[in-house]
Structures are given as structure tokens and as C-alpha cells.
């Protein structure tokens, strides 16, 4: 009886846990326009980092994501950049995610 109850508990916990996330920051940069906003195109970039048990030494994924965004607009100005930093939780590990979206004048 006890054994069956514990099996039910584990199954219920595994089924009900869901994938949880936490949005830490959503920042929007300044808007610096040299021409109308309608003449800009939207560019995006994303960076991720998987962390197991909290052991991680760098945050270079952020710099990589920003470099990707800049390379998507090499000869124009990037403005109105929205930066979203969030974490997706998992079993004894998590994934840090940074998403960048902005307007490119090129």
C-alpha cells in the first residue's frame, strides 16, 4: 500500500511539474532614428547557456548574442534594442537565455 502510494506521488510529481521559466529583465534601449522607423527592418539574435548544478565560469553567451545582432546589421545603425534575459528551469540544471531584437536602418 505504502509502495503504491509513493509510486503515485512520483508519477504525479513528474506529470504536474511543468516547465517553469523566470524572466529577469526586459529592457528596451533608446530610439535613435536617422530616417523613419518604417524604413527599418527588424533583426533578432539569441544566446543560450546550459548550467548544471550551478557550475559555470563565464557569461560570454551574452557577448556572442550581441555580436550576432550586430553582424545582422553590419552597415546600419541598430536602435530600439529589446533585451530579454530569462532562465528556463529543469531538473538540477537550467538554461540561461538572452534574446535581442532591434531595428536596423540598413
Amino acid at each position: 500500500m505504502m509502495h503504491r502510494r509513493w509510486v503515485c506521488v512520483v508519477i504525479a510529481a513528474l506529470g504536474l511539474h511543468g516547465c517553469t521559466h523566470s524572466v529577469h529583465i526586459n529592457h528596451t534601449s533608446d530610439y535613435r532614428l536617422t530616417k523613419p522607423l518604417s524604413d527599418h527592418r527588424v533583426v533578432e539574435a539569441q544566446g543560450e547557456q546550459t548550467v548544471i548544478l550551478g557550475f559555470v565560469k563565464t557569461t560570454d553567451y551574452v557577448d556572442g548574442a550581441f555580436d550576432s545582432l550586430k553582424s545582422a546589421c553590419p552597415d546600419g545603425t541598430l536602435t530600439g534594442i529589446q533585451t530579454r534575459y530569462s532562465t528556463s528551469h529543469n531538473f538540477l540544471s537550467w538554461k540561461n537565455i538572452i534574446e535581442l531584437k532591434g531595428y536596423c536602418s540598413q
Partner: protein
Amino acid sequence: MKHLPIRALWLAVALSGCVHMHSVSTTSVPIERSEPVEASTYRFFFLLLNFDNNYVDQLTEDLAQKCPDGSIEGILTKQEGIMYFPLIAHASRVTATGYCVRPKAAE
């Protein structure tokens, strides 16, 4: 001797220097990106004790000094928390990287 694996594990934990990001923000990026500049500030905390955050105030001046005749644009600001040893040794680092844009010489 029998506690050696546990001590080795604690040493590995202590030397790992776990780094986590607290906040990040950006500003508009210019077309002119030939001259990157960077400045950072660092504060070590012992026993998690910190009595002021004035170490951050110097960041803007440090960055401006690297580009005295122009303006700094496309700034990526990161605030990181570093754990050297749980509860005893922590640090905070704020890094700002950007581009120095000098005014075009009058033709």
C-alpha cells in the same frame, strides 16, 4: 585520508568561481564600429558584506576617458555575480563595452 575525496570536492567547488549574470542592457549601435572600448569595475565581498555600491559610479568616467574626443555608443552593460566560495567569498563585476565614435572632421 578517508576524507580526501570530500576535501578534493570542496576544493574543486571553491576554485570553480561560479559566475552568474544579474542584469544586462544595451544602447543603440552606430554604423562606425572600428574602435571598441571597454571598462569594468569589480568589488570583492567577504562574508557577503557590502556597505555601498559606489564602485559602479566610476564606470562612466573610465569609459569616457578611453574616448575623450568623441562619444561612446553601442554600449553593452553586464552585471555579473561571482561566487568563489559559498557564503565566504563573493564578488560583483560590472562591464561596459562600446564603440568610440569620433566626430567627422569638417571638410
